[in-house]
């Protein structure tokens, strides 16, 4: 099965919907240890990403997956800023680089999209696992994906990683100033990351 430019568009539309639906939950999670806006950033970012991709596809016949990922990156970044903006913009750009100027890839290659996105986030944010950030979902998912795990295993790794942030003391990002007070609350970025990984995993 192939993953086409159309499929990427529909993936982005789905992410926009998911984030809109989860906005208030993500904000509430961010309120516990951060500044209560993560849901808004993800909603606006994914909406802008989807709409940038839609606009591009309308303008440009046969646009490549890379073109779409780059448009999504720019759309997300410019709509949002915040921490999520640079992190997901870089993730999308790396995903674009990964898939290159093709108009479709084998669906199974989506595992490398996950790896590329995780690498982009690490590049931009310099986070390591255990610091209570979205990388605690992305990195284990990427590791399993790179090692050839099934999409079910990839998603399970992301979910376990996100869940494990509950017991971490944050050392990066806004929550890092909390010390022990960040214990007991999952990282909102890790939670939204699992939603993105889940949407990708249903496609391979």
């Amino acid at each position: 099965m192939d993953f086409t430019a159309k499929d990427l568009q529909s993936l982005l539309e789905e992410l926009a919907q998911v984030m809109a639906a989860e906005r208030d939950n993500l904000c509430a999670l961010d309120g516990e240890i951060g500044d209560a806006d993560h849901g808004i950033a993800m909603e606006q970012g994914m909406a802008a990403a989807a709409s940038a991709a839609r606009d591009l596809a309308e303008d440009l016949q046969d646009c490549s997956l890379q073109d779409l990922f780059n448009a999504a990156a720019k759309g997300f970044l410019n709509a949002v800023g915040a921490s999520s903006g640079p992190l997901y913009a870089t993730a999308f750009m790396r995903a674009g680089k990964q898939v290159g100027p093709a108009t479709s890839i084998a669906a199974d290659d989506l595992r490398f999209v996950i790896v590329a996105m995780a690498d982009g986030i690490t590049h931009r944010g310099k986070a390591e696992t255990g610091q209570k950030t979205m990388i605690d979902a992305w990195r284990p998912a990427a590791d399993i994906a790179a090692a050839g795990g099934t999409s079910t295993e990839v998603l399970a790794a992301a979910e376990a990683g996100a869940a494990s942030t509950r017991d971490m003391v944050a050392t990066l990002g806004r929550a890092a100033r909390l010390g022990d007070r960040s214990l007991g609350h999952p990282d909102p970025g890790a939670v939204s990351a699992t939603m993105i990984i889940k949407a990708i995993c249903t496609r391979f």
Partner: protein
Amino acid sequence: MDLTQKLINAGEDAVDEMLTGIMAAHGSHLWRPENAPRAVIARDGPRKGKVGLIIGGGSGHEPTFLGFVGKGLADAAAIGNVFASPPPQPVVDAAMAVDGGEGVLFMYGNYAGDVMNFDMAAEMLELEGIEARTVLTTDDIASAPREARATRRGVAGNVFIFKAAGAAADKGLSLDEVERVARHANDRTYTMGVALSACSLPHTRRPNFQLAAGEMEIGMGIHGEPGVRRGPLQSANAVADEIMDAILAEMAARAGDEVAVLVNSLGSTPLMELYILYARVAERLGEAGLNIHTSLVGPYCTSMEMAGASITVMHLDSELKQMLDHPCDCAMFQVR
């Protein structure tokens, strides 16, 4: 849960409508480049041969940041969504608009998101041949121990730190020198605050944290990030004492030294309470033999409608004093 009481239209339009109002009210001080509605530029100030000072960050802290744009202070501000760093583009737009050929200095509070976005902007400007340096403000002494000063947050002390750097740039100093003054100003500025109630984002209109009546959060961040601890609400004097104890201990000033003081409202704490705090702050400084050279009392760095206050002390020397006294004429702040 009930929505918070706000006088807004759609939550997602709040920042842009605020900017429309600000441009309408302060058109004599501020302008925006076409197609760069989130880059707010000083009408007077930016000029050839002068280092450009660009400040910025999330919205919701007004008059920080854009109220401090004007001749003698910042040349431009890049405006983010509520509590969200601006993306790189408006930072780049601002830098292009104010560049006077001597490079630009970015100054903003030390938050992960801001650092990533402004750093991306600096990379983009490099391609345009504009040198951009960065000085992060880290005045919030409650946000990390002294040894980890570089990881602290930037909060209300911004106003003094930006003011010093803006004066240095306005005096025509080089990028090296403006950067040095900015770092020096940041090194000598100490802030700590308490929150007495939550604020809420215009989008969600839900309190961004819960604080029971009779409690306060000590060391609260200006985005409602939890502080160092929660405790029973104390008297104004006890709060001022706790903060001044911490500041005086770090500052290690000598009798006869001069300071600048800011007693800042986080939003809904009124002047009456700020001046009650100020009375105690002045008393404590007096007891320590320190002389107050500059005082600011009011809402300078807010978290929308959050209740609470912060106290900032800048430990002056003759250079910083000169920089604070240098005239500036901004939309929401003037020194003559």
